[in-house]
């Protein structure tokens, strides 16, 4: 058996090597699998409605917003029925919102484990993101059922859904690592989360289309709007599956760049906080 050499030194950002940290993760891949399975099990085993919970949240929001827009006689959905228009965006949105909420408190909710066992701490938030991905898959199945119901078939643009979810997962991991690390010192993060997500929902093209935003905002403001990666991601996902449209390439590229810039920065910061997380958590 190989003898690894481990060195523990006072925390310093220059000692953080993200590549080496990733390599160290390999040994704990089985822990990641075990904890992820556990996470999914706990979510669905111990509740009466079980896996229904994964789809109830986006469905409920879809119904509420459909009723609302029916009352004010508006149809931001254009050619597709509004319930389908909204639900197609609510599925990736719900993955983001529930994944971020649970993963951002992954360290603070495991204080007793963190002070007694040493293991790569990023595994904890990552397992919540796996659970959010499982929720997403179930939500996508319901989306398929709705498409059959409304007689909307996906075209060849549908493959764009895959890169949009890949970018969403990347962004979610980066932001969750960052917020989980910040929350160790500032519990405000957990308290601010519901407000943040509420504002974020309306700042993303979930209940309206990105085209509507482009039509009403001057170009510089529109660019700032698309710096929110959810803009490009959600719009691409909906266009791909229910609108039969190519993505808004500029918005999707912006989302990809933001996600790819955030991830390494967040990871280094997380590994830095990890060194003393047991003292502060």
């Amino acid at each position, binding site marked *: *058996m190989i*003898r*690894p*050499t*481990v*060195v*523990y*030194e*006072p*925390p310093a950002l220059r000692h953080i090597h993200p590549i080496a940290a990733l390599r160290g993760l390999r*040994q*704990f891949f*089985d*822990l990641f*699998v*075990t*904890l992820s399975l*556990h996470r999914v099990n*706990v979510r669905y085993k*111990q509740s009466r409605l079980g896996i229904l919970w994964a789809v109830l949240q986006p469905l409920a929001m879809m119904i509420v917003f459909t009723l609302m827009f029916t009352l004010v006689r508006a149809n931001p959905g254009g050619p597709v029925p509004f319930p389908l228009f909204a639900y197609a965006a609510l599925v990736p949105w719900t993955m983001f919102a529930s994944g971020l909420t649970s993963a951002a408190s992954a360290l603070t909710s495991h204080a*007793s*484990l*963190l*002070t*007694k*066992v*040493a*293991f790569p701490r990023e595994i904890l938030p990552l397992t919540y993101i796996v659970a959010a991905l499982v929720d997403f898959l179930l939500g996508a199945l319901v989306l398929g059922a709705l498409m059959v119901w409304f007689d909307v078939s996906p075209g060849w643009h549908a493959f764009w859904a895959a890169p949009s979810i890949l970018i969403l997962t990347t962004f979610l991991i980066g932001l969750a690592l960052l917020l989980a690390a910040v929350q160790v010192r500032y519990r405000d993060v957990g308290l601010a989360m519901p407000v943040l997500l509420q504002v974020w929902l309306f700042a993303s093209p979930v209940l309206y289309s990105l085209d509507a935003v482009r039509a009403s905002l001057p170009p510089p403001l529109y660019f700032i709007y698309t710096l929110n990666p959810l803009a490009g991601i959600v719009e691409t996902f909906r266009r791909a599956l229910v609108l039969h449209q190519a993505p808004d390439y500029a918005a999707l590229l912006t989302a990809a760049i933001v996600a790819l810039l955030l991830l390494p920065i967040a990871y280094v910061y997380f590994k830095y906080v990890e*060194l*003393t*997380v*047991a*003292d502060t958590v």
Partner: protein
Amino acid sequence: MTPLDISVQNVGKQYRIGAARERSTFWALRNVSIDVARGTSLGIIGRNGAGKSTLFKLLAGITAPTTGRIVLNGRVAALIEVGSGFHPELTGRENVFLSGSLLGMKRREIASKLNRIVEFAGVERFIDTPVKWYSSGMYVRLGFAIAAHLEPHILLVDEVLAVGDAEFQARCLQRIQELKAQGTTNLFISHDLTAIERLCDSAVLLERGEMAATGAPADVVATYHRRLIAHANAPGEPVAKALKSGITVTNLATWDPGDSDSIACRSGGPLAVTLKYEATRMLPAVEFELRFYAADGTTRIATLQTGEVSVDVPGGTIEFAVAALPLNAGSYFLGAVVRDLASGKDLGWWDGETRLHVQEGQGRASEYQIPHTWRHVQADAGERTPAASVRSKPTG
């Protein structure tokens, strides 16, 4: 030269205490340097709060040092609190996988060792029961079994040997000896000084976060006892003038009346315990109670009581004498309370930490030590002269 598996170089750990505004810092560890060669065992001893657990957390990689550097060569298994990676809702089997993977084991590796782990822990019948229904003994046994079967290069154990029944402890010690024979490097933190002496090749005494002694386990344990006695005999803190209850225990010390230089008593030998108290008013009817605790500090194994005692200002001493100590070799704790006989209320108690270190006596270790005498009666065919044929010899 044997390679070093653990190298602690000038390590210090500073903690912040208090809330944001009135924040202050203190050093839980300072200037600690320890080397442990491959295949050897080191014991860390010291009073509560001496920095033992902090050092352990640094070695286990749970938190980073504030100064210095720690180098570990090999795969580490650290047991800080048995079963700390357990999830109460999961079954024993699921927890073996969870806990094992927290220690860095592969699922396949765990699966191949599952039977041995379960058998070692003796929980075969309950392996598919959620661990929240386990007794604390089962919990501990399963936790240790997992770590001991990881086959680490370096095994770190914090205060685990003090729990579990005698038979399981013996099995743990045997397993540790096996690992040692395979070349595992061990580091133990324990209150059980006998175990430290038996298992370790060297020991370190920590005091207020600094190294107070280092060397052969017997010497370090002896130093520790000398310091504890010196501490116990030091003039106590001045008692608060307006003691509400009127009485407090100011000191509790033990010694071997047969050998006043000795730092420990012998199993089956005599023991004297002196309890000093201060009283701020006359109390007509109280009783003093002396309590013996096992090495874990919580399991009470014996209680001695005085009868009715009348105490008065300024105080006095109660002397307990035990002719033949019925305790096996090991470490124990002593406690004392003074109680009002009329109301049954505890008026005062001993806050300090009094340890009793018992060395092996003449008899063989067994569960109970029964004070006894014996004689031999030889049935002979000739003249009956009892005085010549009956010999009697007291034993301890």
